[in-house]
């Protein structure tokens, strides 16, 4: 556990740097985490992904599978991987402020 000052807020992170409480999230926090993850700017398409992940997390208690994400958010697989280079699964979840993905797909 680590508590950090980030984008003017005090946020708790787990050992692997995922936010503990997704309700503390806002777009400025997302932008700061994205920079830490090597993504300098977040555009509208990033936020389509992030908001879809957050909505799923809110409803199901866990983030979506990549398949569900690409089919239902309207962001195809190729674009998803281009938006989050270095692996969309964990990276997007971190930036979306939700916990570590539990699925294998």
């Amino acid at each position: 556990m680590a508590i950090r000052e980030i984008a003017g807020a005090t946020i708790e992170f787990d050992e692997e740097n995922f936010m503990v409480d997704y309700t503390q999230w806002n777009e400025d926090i997302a932008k700061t985490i994205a920079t830490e993850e090597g993504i300098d700017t977040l555009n509208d398409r990033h936020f389509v992904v992030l908001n879809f992940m957050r909505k799923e997390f809110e409803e199901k208690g866990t983030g979506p599978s990549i398949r569900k994400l690409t089919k239902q958010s309207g962001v195809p697989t190729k674009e998803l991987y281009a938006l989050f280079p270095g692996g969309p699964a964990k990276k997007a979840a971190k930036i979306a402020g939700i916990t570590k993905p539990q699925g294998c797909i």
Partner: protein
Amino acid sequence: MSEYEPIKKVSIICAKGGLDEVYPALIMANGARMDGIEASIFFTFFGLNAIMKKMVDNLKVATVGNAALNMAMPMMKFPITMPFPTLMGALPGVSSLATWMMKNEMEKLDVPPVSEFLEMISDAGGELYACKLAMDMFKLKKDDLVDEIQDVLTVGEFYEKSAGAQIIFT
């Protein structure tokens, strides 16, 4: 965090063509890409079934000679320790039924059908290759394979492409 270097690249060999034998390779390759690990799959011998246009969505679960198969399949509610009788497995339609059940369970877990899975892995930057020797043996041409297959490789070429990778045989 581990004291070891994270895995950066995997080369997966898929040498068998049953539905239950192909999925592990696809799931592991896709899972690697999801975490930013470079991934390729080399399909050889009956593994070629998984990438043949005519076979890709017709893979089956073997119900004869499959010692791991048991009666605990979802509809049956028998104990997992009860083996699947070989004679029953030989009845017409039983393999199709077992296949249908597995596909059904996979769909519930959001695991795509094989053709869609190959497309997903390819779109995710995973590389898919066919084995030249096995292609020659089965008299197959590149046109017989799904479009996602990038190349037909000799064993030597496969090893070249696997430089720096962990090689996984499924």
